[in-house]
């Protein structure tokens, strides 16, 4: 304790600078956590928690008793995994490619263009997808034009294509934005290493592989571990907007499920229970991934 106090005194300027942010985090991130208590009670807004009936783990059990929950878990894990693999690697590759561009103006232009979709709402993205993938859309027009198909395909009605379409849409929307942090990490790599690499006969691919990638590896690991923590957050708006009654079997994820069976039905305790379960599970995964990363790659975030 004394050690902690001494450390605080020694670094008091830093603590004072951080005070507002820490207060904000405490008020808005920590205090609301106490609200998780309602997941163990049959709570109605306006009632005192003392008057609410204690139901233990009922709402956690309720989730797993709902028909179709296994499909929902499968969809959540598959969509998240696609994001954590293809969706995670794409911005890294994009950042590496962007780093290879010599013309600064062109490089900045491409970078700006690439993160613009991030600011486009999912409603607009869905509308674009409908236009592109509709029976009168560009894709069907091109495929029928070159004779690959003779009848238009209703892409968004096809279960087998939904995960792919969703992943592509997620990548298109988020790739440029996610690449910013890697581009920033790349600029931090010591340029002398590249000079040394040139002397050793490394080409552009060799430098990217042997210098740039190892240089940004801590950032990659950090983001990957944090990404694993969000594995049960597979999206929400995009599923509701791009999905339809025919693709529900493959688009329904935990968040859309809870929206319907919790929020829309006014079952706040149930919604809170699911949120708590997701957080606990995500936290456990972060700990686990961190440990594995520490043992295997000797890199950990805490």
């Amino acid at each position, binding site marked *: *304790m004394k050690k*902690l106090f001494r450390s605080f005194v020694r670094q008091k300027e830093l603590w004072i600078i951080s005070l507002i942010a820490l207060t904000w985090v405490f008020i808005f991130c*920590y*205090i*609301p*956590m*106490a*609200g998780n*208590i309602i997941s163990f009670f*049959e709570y*109605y*807004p*306006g*009632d*005192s*928690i*003392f008057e609410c009936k204690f139901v233990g783990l009922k709402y956690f059990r*309720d989730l797993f008793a*709902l*028909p*179709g929950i296994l499909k929902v878990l499968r969809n959540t894990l598959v969509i998240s995994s696609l994001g954590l693999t293809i969706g995670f690697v794409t911005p890294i590759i994009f950042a590496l490619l962007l780093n290879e561009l010599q013309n600064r103006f062109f490089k900045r232009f491409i970078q700006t263009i690439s993160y613009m979709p991030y600011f486009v709402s999912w409603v607009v993205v869905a509308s674009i997808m*409908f236009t592109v993938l*509709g*029976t*009168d859309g560009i894709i069907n027009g091109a495929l029928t034009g070159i004779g690959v198909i003779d009848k*238009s395909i*209703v892409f*968004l*009605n096809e279960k087998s294509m939904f995960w792919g379409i969703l992943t592509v849409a997620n990548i298109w929307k988020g790739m440029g934005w996610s690449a910013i942090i890697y581009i920033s990490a790349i600029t931090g790599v010591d340029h002398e290493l590249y000079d040394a690499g040139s002397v050793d006969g490394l080409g552009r691919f060799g430098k990217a592989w042997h210098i740039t990638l190892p240089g940004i590896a801590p950032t990659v690991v950090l983001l990957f571990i944090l990404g694993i923590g969000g594995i049960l957050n597979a999206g929400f708006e995009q599923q509701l907007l791009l*999905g*339809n*009654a*025919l693709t*529900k*079997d493959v688009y329904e994820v935990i968040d859309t499920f809870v929206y*319907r*069976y919790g929020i829309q*039905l*006014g*079952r*706040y305790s149930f919604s809170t229970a699911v949120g708590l379960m997701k957080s606990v599970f995500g936290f456990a995964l972060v700990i686990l991934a961190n440990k594995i990363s520490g043992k295997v790659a000797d890199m950990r975030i805490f």
Partner: protein
Amino acid sequence: MKKRAISVIVVLVLVISAFSGCGKGNNTEEGNASTADPTSAASTETPGETKEANEFGWVVPDETLTITVYAGEGDQEEFLADVDGGKAVYDKWLLDTMNVVIDWQLYSVSMEEKVNLMLASNDYPEVVTWLTDDLANKFIAQGKATDLTQLINTYGDNITRRMGGYLNFLREDDGSLYKLAQYWGENPNVAGQDFGARYDYWLELGESDIYKTPEEYYDTMVKILANHPTNDDGLQTYAFTSQDKTGQNFLTAMLGAYGFVNGFKVNDDGTFSHWLNTEEGLEIAKFVNKCYRNNLIEPDFLANGYEEYIAKQSSGQILGNFATWWYAWVSGHQTWAVNEGDAYNINKRFMNVSVAAEGVDMSDTSLLTSNFIGSYRCVITDKCKQPEAVLSWINWENSELGNFITGWGAPSESNVWDFAEDGTWKVDDAILDVDTKETSYHQVKAQNGAGIYMIATNCNWLKTDEYSNFDKLDSRIDRVSVYDYWPVNADGSFSNEGVNICWGYYSALPKDITLYATTFNAEDDITITKQTIADQIESDWAMMITASTEDECVALFNQSAEYCNAMGLQDLTDYYQQSYEKNKAIFGE
């Protein structure tokens, strides 16, 4: 030591913050108001027996009556900005003539969220309206709604008279009354679920009679599509599409043609059967599937929202309207008349058509339904200092004249109506032209603040019947409600030729489905059953109607019925039936 200190801090934070917002608040005093005794209201200025009512039927209080009302989701800034100037006009009239001020509050968050926050913080106004039953019940369950059981007898004569036995549906099991209906009454619309078609294209077919069954409708649309395979942009045309990503509009319309209510068939012995457990249900699925397989339904129908639906109908790509009537109204002549100006041909429009399934009489269909008590409620909360006066105001809103003023604004030369010399309610001649309705009626009404404060009033068809007397209303208009009207000739026909075309083939009569109204409590198992079955049917229906063969459609139908029955469909059916029986007993049938 370090661990212990951190543990203590974490525990303290959790405990303190858990209980900090959980108190009931200091509402003991206000709570007394929830059981207000109407006879002990001497301290409040109650419009009472000793004073005469003014020309509008309202006993003007000596002290200004101010009512604070939370009215759901909306843009408060825009409301207060009063762009049309109508709020200022109506506020002035209310204050000068009635000595009443209404403090109307809107919030740009969902009403459910806001009400829950209000309840949790014990901070809500005197009146809350536009509530769902579920939300109103929260106020009642927590003792935050005023008991109106006695008050309604003393101050609510218009409400009780005009609602008749329907008021009993709002009562609790013990007969007490805590909530009022908002936007209630008989549906004034001419059309409901529609089997519509382009009128000009139908005329081209030269058929002497209009189609009367779904099968005849199908045949007609096939012929129309054959004559018009593409629209002006060269895109392939279709007969129908959807707007809800599920294709439920086809199901709803077809169930209406078979006379089902809420998805249930009422059997001869009075029992209910869910459509999935009926022969008719299978026929419906097969019919819609046939439409899909034969390219009458647009392949992208599951991707459309409302905007796309309207755009595709307007562009001439969708030539029928297998859905609710007004989609075709908005996308059809209302758009074309504006866009085409003088070149517009009156026959270029959608006609709304009612059809009855084979073997079903038109009078037994449920294409046009009316739920008298509506879906919205109003409570006078325990914060209200003068519940008697507030209820008196709501009662005035429900007098014939109060009803009309609330919906159409105060009478004046600058409004769409005024008192005639003989005391009748004469509408402005300009509103008799339907084609200029948007400017001559809706716009002028908005400039007079019409309809901005409806606390617990109705959207009833304003006509003289056993409950109401609207003899003073201008006879040149009919189907009048707080939001609309239609000009008519002396013989009762619509005076606008286009309107007669649109509705000339709609013969289904309104079916009162109030007795079928069923409510669900969030935490009840049956609510979850209802939701899971609804979700299952939503997917299954889409698969059935898009099946590539009829056999596949039938197999999917049977599979869905089997699965939903296993999920508790019979329990759900029983629940609806018990609710119906209970409603019948309440209504005294």
